């Protein structure tokens, strides 16, 4: 057993968070959620459909034991819209969590740091447990933690890009100074990348496209669950050091007196 993951005062055994978008069918998504063992599951808001009944994803998700919904603010272009989206998400999910995401550019979906910061401030004041999606920017990570965010969610790479931990060096800075959990969100493609994030010291990862767009989403959800568990176990066990051969040079320490 690895140490539980605490987020906003709530404890979770699983360090894999799952997104529910982009699946071929609601049933596949539900089976993937089950297979992943994820306890924190993100959902989006959508305007109701007037032509036909919407797929009811809330009902079946809510029936799964031990699932906490985390509504996101996707679609919001600025802080004001994100704030409203969060309020609506809370009405629907009865969850204190919100995944704050503001990405005004529809092509790369990279987060707007200025609007995200402003929205985080408002949402913390409103009593939300705020999980902001953000660039892997060490200064922004501190600023968001300083105003009361419960975690930071730096991206590994752009949403859906499958480029893995492209921000590795910046993640190291964030981890070194963070006082809140660090959750890598977006960009992962392979379970090995999720394991690497956990080995590095990240507290959790959020995966969506890598599972939804896999050949067999349910099997891939299982694979990510194993990888996240392995990565965390390795982190707690303590990795052995890689070793370089020492390069002989002229002595640097001959001046020392005993």
């Amino acid at each position, binding site marked *: 057993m690895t140490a539980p993951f605490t987020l906003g005062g709530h404890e979770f055994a699983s360090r894999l968070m799952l997104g*529910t*978008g982009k699946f071929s069918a609601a049933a596949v998504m539900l089976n993937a959620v089950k297979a992943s063992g994820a306890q924190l599951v993100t959902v*989006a808001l959508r305007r109701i459909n*007037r032509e036909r009944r919407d797929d009811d994803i809330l009902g079946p998700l809510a029936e799964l034991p031990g699932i906490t919904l985390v509504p996101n603010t996707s679609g919001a272009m600025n802080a004001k819209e994100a704030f*409203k989206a969060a309020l609506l998400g809370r009405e629907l999910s009865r969850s204190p969590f919100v995944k704050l995401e503001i990405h005004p550019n529809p092509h790369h979906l990279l987060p707007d740091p200025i609007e995200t910061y402003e929205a985080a401030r408002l949402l913390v004041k409103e009593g939300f447990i705020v999980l902001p999606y953000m660039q892997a920017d060490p200064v922004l990570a501190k600023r968001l933690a300083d105003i009361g965010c419960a975690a930071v969610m730096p991206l590994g790479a752009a949403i859906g890009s499958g480029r893995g931990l492209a921000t590795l060096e910046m993640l190291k800075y964030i981890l070194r100074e963070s006082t809140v959990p660090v959750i890598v969100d977006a960009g992962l493609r392979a379970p090995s990348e999720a394991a690497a994030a956990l080995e590095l010291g990240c507290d959790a990862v959020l995966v969506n496209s890598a599972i939804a767009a896999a050949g067999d989403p349910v099997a891939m959800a299982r694979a990510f669950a194993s990888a996240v568990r392995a990565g965390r176990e390795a982190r707690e066990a303590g990795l052995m050091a890689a070793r370089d051969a020492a390069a002989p040079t002229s002595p640097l320490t001959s001046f020392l007196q005993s």
Partner: protein
Amino acid sequence: MSLTVCSLNALAAPAQGAARATRPMHLTVNGEPMELPGAPTVGALLDALGADRARSAVLVGDDVVRASAWDAHALAEGDRIEVVTLAGGG
């Protein structure tokens, strides 16, 4: 996506305050124009939309209207309303 301008006069029950009911109220619902007869409430709007009340949340202007207040909350001419539900998302 087709733009549906919905006139709900046909759906509305025979108006009690017949004189007022003849002038429809103009609303913007989920970004589209919509007319409702009489003095509609949020609850009446949801019924008109055929929305599943258990899976809907409502924003009128900048304010969330909680489910317990839907049937009492009167809409006003020109209100901008969002009716949303949960969907898959990352």
